[in-house]
């Protein structure tokens, strides 16, 4: 498994194929990250947070660089990661309500 997630593999992303599908994917992907109602920097920070949530090493490297190149600073990037962590942690914790409900149903 040690040959997973090598940095030099990231540029090969476009080679996954088939070409026709990859072209469609990247056309959509690039449109998603273009400046719109959200700035490019805001989108890069969202992507950085999601990258941590899905724990994709490729995405973390790529969007750390992108955030810097869009002018984000260390504090903003760290806060974005905390947002991801808060949602992950919160989503576990809020399931405690399910636990409580179930315990309530079973208990006298």
């Amino acid at each position, binding site marked *: 498994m040690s040959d997973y997630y090598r*940095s030099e593999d990231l*540029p090969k992303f476009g080679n996954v194929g088939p070409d026709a599908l990859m072209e469609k994917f990247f056309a959509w992907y690039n449109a998603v990250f273009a400046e719109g109602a959200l*700035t*490019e*920097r805001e989108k890069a920070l969202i992507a950085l947070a999601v990258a941590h949530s899905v724990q994709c090493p490729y995405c973390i490297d790529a969007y750390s*660089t992108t955030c*810097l*190149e*869009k*002018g984000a*600073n*260390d504090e903003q990037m760290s806060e974005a990661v905390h947002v991801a962590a808060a949602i992950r942690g919160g989503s576990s914790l809020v399931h405690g309500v399910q636990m409580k409900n179930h315990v309530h149903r079973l208990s006298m």
Partner: protein
Amino acid sequence: MAGSTLRKRQAALADARRQLARLGEIPLARSFDACAESAGHAPLRSARIQVLQINVGKRCNQVCHHCHVDAGPDRTEVMSREVMEQCLRVLDQTDIQTVDITGGAPELHPDFRWLVGEVRARGRHVMDRCNLTILALPNYADLPEFLAEHEVEIVASLPYYLARRTDAQRGDGVFAGSIEVLRRLNAIGYGRAGSRLRLNLVTNPVGAFLPPKQAPLELEWKRELSRRHGIEFHSLYTITNMPISRFLEFLETSGNTELYMQRLLDAFNPNAVEALMCRTTLSVGWDGVLYDCDFNQMLDLPVDARFPRHIRDFDRAALEGRPIVTAPHCFGCTAGAGSSCGGAIQ
């Protein structure tokens, strides 16, 4: 903080030939010349000379991590009065309107004020590439007023509007000193809206990545410097770090050289080629040798050998249209929005 220059540490990369050899061994899919050709410039040639960029020496009061000059307090290269007079003769012979004075910290040159006075007496525009902290040193306390009196445009380096990143690149305490000087410059009219006293800031990325888009960044900087420090300035220039000299040393020690060069190549922007600064700027070294740009100057790459190579032999007709001397570092000026001494190209 690098602490000292490559030269002082006798580092291998102090030798420009070693820098070029290192860049040359990186396997890039396309050469700079091939990319320039794809943009319709085969070969890349100079156009009409609009700016005479004079590097008066490599001495500096700072030792910044990313410095492409390897400037520092230990550097002794200083332009002679004779070479300065040769530069002034070129102004007398031509209609070149702008003189861009750089270094090192150009203000440290004992003839800096004389040179500025002579250029201004000829009615030409002067730009001073200033590191800001030099203006806080006791012997230079009256320099802001001198620059204002001569309406010199100040192009000042400041990596970021927060202290940590700025000091990481330029040394501990540089941010606080720079803010102090910016306040003084504002107080005498520099950087104020509508003022003739132009104050522009230059930011280089603090690391191995490309600069953000210039226009939105300028708005952010204006808001933050005003809000945090009450400082005003006119324009913000984003400049890409050149993979040479001390920045190349950083790339090497951090294991980023190949990645950075690939990043520059991937971000090659054919639309930036037309307005590259080497096409309209002639760079003069401290010893009078002519270069296509200040980066080539630091790599000991003078203008093409078939053309006049010293300011005393200046011949505008001969020099205009000369092929630009290129090497892999040139990708630094064509990446993304492009990069020049005046910031992003597009």
